């Protein structure tokens, strides 16, 4: 009889590391097995071993293009945070700003960003700018909406308490508005980080001279499918790292959350 207790293990800290690791290994093992069993040719679906080989063979290209995608994404993301937070505060605090800008923002957000990329290419050329701009355009909206939502959800009683103490607008913001909005900001940053990656790669695959999106298009046109998959996997890894970073930061900053 084993003394292993599943419920107990699931609540432990190590389960959070061990289980995702096992799931990843099992996924790749199954993948390898299926490719071998059904004799799938590499230009349809390369086996993980084949992808690893491509990673080793094309390390310099993969590295250079990853860096390009990373910095355009991060730059677009940082711009999105700045603009998103400012817009969110305007919409959240000013009825005038809400009524004038919010419908426009929603309308703009509905436009597929892939459709804008050719225009960006005409304006800026096939370089890093369209990727940065697209990353920004995809990422700022969820941030703005969440900041506005955060400001809007401060309890009316709390506002009354502060008003009855004679608190100024600035004090109310410092003591209540800002800390109350922080969890909403972090929730949106996690989403926006993934959106920024998606934006950058969409743009790179249409109008660029470098980046993982560009590399994937190039590789597939050469029928080098293992290289395209290697690029995809690197993209996924970068996304997970950025997401994990914000989860960690959120835990540090929003210390009061359970």
């Amino acid at each position, binding site marked *: 009889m084993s003394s292993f207790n599943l419920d107990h293990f699931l609540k432990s800290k190590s389960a959070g590391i061990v289980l995702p690791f096992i799931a990843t290994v099992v996924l790749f093992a199954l993948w390898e097995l299926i490719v071998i069993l059904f004799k799938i040719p590499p230009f349809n679906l390369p086996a993980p071993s084949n992808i690893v080989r491509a990673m080793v063979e094309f390390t310099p290209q993969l590295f250079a293009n990853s860096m390009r995608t990373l910095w355009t994404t991060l730059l677009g993301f940082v711009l999105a945070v700045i603009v998103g937070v400012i817009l969110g505060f305007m919409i959240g605090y000013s009825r005038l700003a809400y009524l004038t800008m919010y419908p426009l923002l929603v309308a703009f957000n509905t436009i597929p960003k892939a459709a804008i990329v050719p225009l960006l290419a005409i304006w800026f050329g096939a370089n890093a700018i369209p990727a940065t701009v697209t990353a920004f355009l995809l990422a700022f909206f969820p941030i703005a909406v969440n900041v506005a939502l955060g400001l809007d959800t401060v*309890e009316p*009683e*709390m506002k*009354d*308490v*502060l*008003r*009855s*103490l*004679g*608190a100024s607008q600035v*004090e109310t913001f410092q*003591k*209540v508005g800002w*800390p109350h909005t922080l969890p909403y900001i972090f929730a949106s940053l996690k989403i926006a980080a993934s959106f920024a990656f998606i934006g950058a790669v969409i743009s790179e695959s249409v109008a660029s001279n470098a980046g993982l999106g560009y590399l994937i298009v190039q590789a597939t046109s050469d029928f080098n499918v293992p290289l395209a998959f290697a690029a995809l996997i690197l993209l996924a890894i970068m996304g997970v790292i950025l997401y994990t970073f914000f989860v960690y930061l959120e835990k540090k900053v*929003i*210390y*009061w*959350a*359970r």
Partner: protein
Amino acid sequence: MVKPTLDPSSSSSIATDVEPLLEFDRVGLEYPFEGSMRRIIQEVNLSIKPSEFVSFVGPSGCGKTSILRMVSGLSPAPIGEIRYRGQRIKKPLNNVGIAFQNPVLLPWRNTLNNVMLPLEIVPPYKNDFGQKKAEYTRMAQDLLSTVRLQDFQKQYPWQLSGGMRQRASLCRALIHQPEILLLDEPFGALDAFTREEMWTMLQALWMRVKCVGILITHDLREAVFLSDRVFVMSPRPSTIIYEELINLPRPRTLEMELDDEFNHYFSNIRRHIHHN
């Protein structure tokens, strides 16, 4: 030569006792409802002396909460006026303490820092908050031990029970030594036992600060236990239809609830409550 004329009202009022802190002068309230204005409060006239504790009881919808909002200046009286030390209340007063049914503590502050919030905002405390932080912390700890929360200073709101949160909220309402304490059904969400416990704690806190207390409640026993005077309001459009002076010695104890005198006050008030 011009002689200064004596104000007749001031010369004649020497014989009466203390000046009222708050005066309600023909206070009324109406609300737009289905296209026309509906009268909520017909007319309220009364005055409250310094360090007096009064309660307003009456059927729901009679404008009790609105009275608190008018006194605090959060929504000044639209009809008639309420005067604080002779001055008409037109904007939020900043020497009031407020507690609601929802204790609204800040989740990112522990109990101690929640209680100290007003000291960071209200003058003169805010001006020397940096230098006198140790002294102010002792003030807050003092209040917290009055409500037996001295061992929960470092706890966050989510770690406290509903009753504990409400006690912390009362301490926050009183730390800046307000002249007026406004309580809007503060114990409405608590169970009967906790509620009675809260009465004695609120009384202890109030007796330390000695400010005017205005309590809105549905619980007539609570009103009798805590008040010097209880005002009974009629259904909408409301007026004060009955006023009971509670002459029980302080500090009052929960045993007093069983006394004939207490029950006499209770039934007097109960008889005057009419439903909508």
